[in-house]
């Protein structure tokens, strides 16, 4: 499974970097994350509940950070074992770049493989589950950052304009009247 994406964040590169290295933030934002603990510098143990189609299991695993170029990028190597449900592992390359108008841009490339039952019965669902988990992660991440850093209005507005998918998402969430609306001001707002 391969996935890549880009998000514009209404916080500084340094703030984003700190957040992405903070187990508390990660725990709050990773969907299904039950615990995450630093085991040593750049290594974490986590327990995560994941459901792919008919297979639901608690995955116990680890995250090890590598190629750390603070505050710009790291590679996140993860693996998890869900017992009879199978296993998953992969890498996520995460890069942060400051934006001229303020805020920063986060780019990610994820390569993951799954094995065992989860691969056998959920193949068709895995991409969808992964995308929805990523969506959910960033939605929570944005909310968490909003809560922590409450950026200046105009920075967030510019950032939204710079990112077409983000703008569309805001329009969509406004149409739905969703919670995303409150998290950041709209370009017009």
């Amino acid at each position, binding site marked *: 499974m391969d996935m890549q994406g880009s998000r514009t964040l209404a916080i500084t590169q340094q703030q984003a970097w700190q957040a992405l290295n903070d187990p508390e933030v990660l725990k709050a934002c990773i969907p299904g994350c039950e615990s995450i603990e630093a085991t040593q510098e750049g290594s974490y143990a986590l327990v995560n509940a994941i459901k792919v189609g008919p297979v639901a299991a608690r995955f116990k695993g680890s995250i090890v950070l590598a190629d750390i170029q603070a505050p710009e990028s790291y590679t996140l190597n993860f693996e998890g074992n869900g017992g009879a449900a199978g296993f998953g592992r992969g890498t996520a390359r995460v890069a942060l770049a400051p934006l001229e108008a303020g805020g920063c841009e986060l780019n990610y490339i994820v390569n993951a493989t799954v094995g065992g039952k989860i691969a056998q019965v959920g193949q*068709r669902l895995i991409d969808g589950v992964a995308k929805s988990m990523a969506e959910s992660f960033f939605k929570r991440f944005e909310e968490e950052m909003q809560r922590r850093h409450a950026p200046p209005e105009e920075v967030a507005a510019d950032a939204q304009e710079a990112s077409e998918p983000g703008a569309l998402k805001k329009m969509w969430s406004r149409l739905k009247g969703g919670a995303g609306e409150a998290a950041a001001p709209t370009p017009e707002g």
Partner: protein
Amino acid sequence: MGANDFAKLPHIGVSLKRKEDARFLTGAGNYTDDIQQANQKYAAFVRSPHAHARICAVDTAAASAMPGVLRVFTGADIEGKMGGLPCGWLISNPDGSPMKEPMHPILAIGKVRYVGDHVALVVADTLEQAKNAAEAVVVDYEELAPVIDMKKAKDGPALHDEAPDNHCYKWTLGDKAAVDAAFAGAAHVSRIDLVNNRLIPNAIEPRAVNASYNRASDEYTLYVANQNPHVERLLMTAFVLGLPEHKVRVIAPDVGGGFGSKIFLYAEDVALTWAAKELNCAIKWTAERSESFLSDCHGRDHITHAEMAMDQEGRFLAMRVHTDANLGAYLSTFASAVPTILYGTLLAGQYTTPQIYVEVDGWFTSTAPVDAYRGAGRPEATYVVERLVTRCAWDLGLSQDEIRRRNFITQFPYQTPVALQYDIGDYHACMDKAQQLADVAGFEARRKESEARGLKRGIGYSSYIEACGLAPSNIAGALGARAGLFEAGEVRVHPTGSVTVFTGSHSHGQGHETTFAQLVAARLGLDPSQVDIVHGDTGRVPFGMGTYGSRSLSVGGTAIMKALDKIEAKAKKIAAHLMEASDADIEFANGEFTVKGTDKKIPFAQVALTAYVPHNYPLDKLEPGLNETAFYDPTNFTYPAGTYICEVEVDPATGVVRVDRFTAVDDFGVIVNPMIVEGQVHGGLVQGIGQALLEHGVYDPDSGQLLTGSYMDYTMPRAADFPQFTLGHVCTPCTHNPIGAKGCGEAGAIGSPPAVMNAVLDALKDLGVKDLDMPATPHRVWQAIRQAAQPAAA
């Protein structure tokens, strides 16, 4: 009695409703999972989640301590105590060296080699306890790179130390020099590259085992969903467990479909039988559908390049074929024979091609073992021949039927250049009838009508031949077979004249209880209701090689016929005594014994009674009783053949293929029950068309995970995918069995895939599409159309 006389008997050629359906349709079938034994425990298997890995450690402590768990067995428990699963056919390389036969352990020892490989066996009081404990077994794996693509297998990491390049064997057949010479002087050469897609069998009943051990008698009883219980017993006792054969009873009760996948001796069968003694209990295991996908032997999976040399008129001069065959991670029971003996020998098809050379490379890969699946080698051969022949027609500007007619064999017996001798057939008659039933004359009008609706209509031909009733034993033995190929039948006439037949053929959906009853009733002048058929039990049936290769009627039925010959001969002597006549003057017909030239007669039942109440009986010359057994080893294969014509409509905008018409004309020789034959053909066609359009077993090329491990991703055909089939028959009775039967169980699956693909390619011809591999899914068809259009657009 010859085939022509046999065919005229009452009950022959009659669509008698199936006797067994009364119990199947009322839920009274008795399948392995229905069997309950005393002191019965349950098994669960721990299976590898990796395609290739070293087993560093297996920690069973936590699992063993869980409630209800009797024992957790691993490879360490069986190592040195039993052999591995045997392969039933030795294939030799051109230099005479034997194929590589790595150990196939009952529980993985040291390494796992495919996702689903059996690592540990957990036995517990309940199924839930067994499954929970299986989840608690901790296996420490060191992952190794898998070998998935057989084209790269020789450079991949070695799965087995015995086969460093993952090459199991090279096998060749035919005169290479003569073929090369013919190609050098040919006016035309057509070439084709084909993939025969991997299939995953899906019988309604999954594999199931219920094994028990009796300490008092030191006897084992194994209930198993299996197609050939005597072979299962022989392989397990002689090759794996080293047990005396008479101490093991194997019973294959009602079995819900096999399609080949239940021929083989599987590790689960052996593991439970062995563990039953270790734990002094009965143990049951029924595969879940997911386990079936992972661990049942898969089918097909060939990559082939084929070429045909022709003269100016399109007459075939020589054929040259190279095939890579995927054997999976281990050699299953008949894995080695399927892409060789059962494949290369069929490459003549229905044609007079004078020279054929075939070369096959068999490869180990980190995938489930591949073995016989409905047709076993003959569908693969037919697909190569019939796709190539249609390609030849298009290359030469001939029609699909014309090129076939120009090359049909018309003189019989016919010796092919690839070892077989066809005894009889009438290929032009099959083609004539198929064209008439398919209304080929109206095709052009239908094509225009489709065109008007924006759809592409195509017609595809396939003139298949296959070989049934693998035979004879002495020749097969010389070719590497490690089993005999005869069949056994016992006819037990009871004192009141009713009959029980014990047959080595096994029925798992084929309707033997009806067909064989018709055969016996016809011979003895009884009603079929007076004849019961017993099969699938080594404790009751004298011996048997089981059911595969469409052999039941031609081989199993003939064994019964031979036993009936003995019954008739003895009964005539009893009748002669009763009517005070000479043996030579007794005639038997319509259930009555008569004395030639007189009006004296006595019924069969009276002779039967006399045999068991021998008050007036020639005891000085004849034993009492009327019970005879016969073994029949055929002198040749039988050769069912036919022509199939398929018409499809393809939507060029979406790539969706719809089978609009399908006509199948088969020559199965003499038919005993037309309704059962029709059912067999329907089932075969559905499986074959399913292969052509829908089914595909896919492993992830990097990780070796089975991507099509459930019905989410593996598309089984459904009724709505098919039109009503049009069936027809031609009958040239088989010349070397007394029934004249040839076999009908696999023909549909053998003949249909190339008919469908030729039709799809015919529909796409004027869009420039020349090549397409099965399954022709909408995505693939759409892509092929787009790719063909690209050069023009650029």
